[in-house]
């Protein structure tokens, strides 16, 4: 079972922090600029709780994530509250993307997204790869998909 790059935790934690700060900021703004009876400590409390939950979730998420490149299928497992195990047979792979969001670029990571014709097709994305790793993975999956080719997609 392959794990994600450990640095992905940084990304997820950063996202959780940003979210917590934004939520706290919104609450603070509401306190300052509206006449709603919001106690002073509430924005801080909101931020704090979100921060703890978010960071904890991000770390657990990293723990739960794993993928495996099997003979004839890509296998993923993930999920903190709801565990999800996905099997994507290579025959069903339509195309493979590798993508880098702005935060991902900042942190030097990339993700690979696998599309199938299924109604949940684009769900299958593997985050937390090195840029080279993502491209290699994309390439490998592409080759495996071509090799598994032989029938129409749907």
């Amino acid at each position, binding site marked *: 079972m392959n794990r994600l790059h*450990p640095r992905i935790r940084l990304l997820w934690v950063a996202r959780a922090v940003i979210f917590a700060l934004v939520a706290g900021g919104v609450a603070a703004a509401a306190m300052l600029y509206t006449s709603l009876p919001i106690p002073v400590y509430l924005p801080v409390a909101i931020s704090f709780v979100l921060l703890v939950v978010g960071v904890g979730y991000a770390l657990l998420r990293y723990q739960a994530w794993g993928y495996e*490149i099997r*003979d004839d299928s890509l296998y993923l497992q993930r999920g903190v509250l709801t565990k999800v195990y996905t099997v994507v047979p290579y025959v069903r792979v339509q195309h493979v993307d590798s993508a880098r969001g702005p935060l991902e670029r900042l942190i030097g990571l990339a993700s690979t997204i696998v599309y199938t014709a299924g109604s*949940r097709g684009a769900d299958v994305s593997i985050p937390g790869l090195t840029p080279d790793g993502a491209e290699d*993975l994309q390439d490998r999956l592409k080759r495996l998909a071509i090799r598994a080719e032989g029938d129409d997609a749907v």
Partner: protein
Amino acid sequence: MTHLSPLSVPYRAAQRSVSIVFALVFIAFTGGTAFGGFLGGLGAVALVGFAVLAIAGYEFAYFQRFEYELTTDTLDIRSGVFSRRNREIPYRRIQNVDISRNVAQRLVGLAAVDLETAGGGGTEGSLRFVTYEEALRIQKEVARLKRGDTAPDAPEPDREVLFELTPRELSIVGVLSFDLRLPGIIFLFGTSIFPVVASFVDVPVPTRGIAAGVVGLVMLALLVAVISWVAGFASAVVNYYGFRLTRVGDELQYERGLIQHYTGSIPIDKLQTLTIEDNPLKRRFGYATLLVETAGYTPGAENGGGGNRARRGSEAAIPLAKRDRVRALVEEIEGVAEPAFERPPRRIRRRYVIRYLLATGALVGALYGVNVVFGGIPWYSPLVLVPVAAVAGVYQWRHRGYALTENHFVTRNGFWKREMRFVPYYRIQTAIETRTIFQRRWRVSTVTADTAGSLSIVGGDAAAVDIEDGDAATLRTELSDRLRDALADRREERRRARQAALGIDVAEPDAERGVADAVVTAEDGHSASESLEEVGPRAEAPSGREAETAPDEAETSSESSSNDVPDEPTAEEEESSWDDTSPGGDESDEEQDDERNGFIWGDPTSTAADEDDADTDEGESADER
């Protein structure tokens, strides 16, 4: 190149004019007469006339520019007045060919043809309008060219009527249909109209107080029920009038419709899922509904109309029939009977009961809250539902289950709306196992087989819900294994069919099996074509030349669909070009040959190499294998 029917020019112009002209007439006459009296009115007439002329001119240009052609392997459409568009749709990508005609079109003998591919989105090819005869010809020609028959007068495959909706069934469909979109409108309308009506009606209707409110609500509810029922009845009858499902070769054809008449074809090997749906009422009287699902196809969306049809987006759905007939039909189409279902573990019954109890509890809590605020509400009344919750929990468990038949993954879920789904293994896209935090407490999982069906988008995937988590893990791998096997079988079948068609003697079973075995055992380093050539002489084909060409043909057929036009090398070319560009130069020739024949599955050498690749690829990441 063929043009559309010339009649489509006036028809389209008229269609387009009506709304524009109405708007223009209104604006021009009110505005025109207000400003310039008679002269202004004249100007308005001129303006309207000009608009109509412009529309007619545009439509004529559209007609002039619109050309289509049925070539040997694509349907070409050239269109566009201002920006030109050339479109080529390969036949084997075409899923459905739908013909529709409304009353006006039927009067002038026109029809609209829509060609759908799996691409989802919109309709890929749309011919507005051709004559009805031409539409039927196109439908037939596309089917023929898709099969790969090159001779234009090849014998038409057998037609077999699978299902016809009897008038009795049609009326039952109507009676059971409620058009649920209407009540909303009626509700808005009704609430505003009720006081007006009440003021006219000369009975002592209480117009104030609680009594008035209750009477009003009851009347409104009745009105809504009656109107939506009538609307549902009408739309069901109009939609399903004359419903007929026919099997033509390897396609399903349906036709239906009273005012707007639809004819369409669905290739059977593009079917994603069959669903048998019923509810307690239908079960009681032994009826069921059948839904036929193809990929990315949401027909009828642009036509609006018909609540029942738009509801599910499945044109060939059989609205209602005796359960036995539906079962027989499923068996006829997919060759699968209703299996014995494996139910979730018994302890799960408690889970469902608890769930219903929680829901009841929530209701009680909410009512209690309301009671605290307003008072005078018997907030404990939902507690009578407690025994009901127990029964419902057991029923929910009873109606749940899954089965693995020879070729299908079958699931059954739901009590009020019970759905039994038949998913052929070779249609599975991904297998997903999910386990929520609550399911983990009960040590159960849900396994979903994702297909490319259009209903699945709405959340109707085939799912084995709440099965033992150990079973779920096996089921997950089992599904992907069976998909692999089913695909291999299909390839094998196609190649055999192709070989038979090419004249390798079918009456010589030994020779044929020899060929097949040689290909199957070609994993051990022999390329499949070599083995085929070795066996070739033994095959004793009628003529030497055919025997020589056979292996090549077999190679092509194994990877392209049987619907292919023969000697179409595109798939292979494309593949080899992909191979050229891919930097993986480590692939040996054997592998490529295997790959061309679709037999990578059992190849231990290539997979071992892949595993190694995997490690090096992810060298940076922690490897916990």
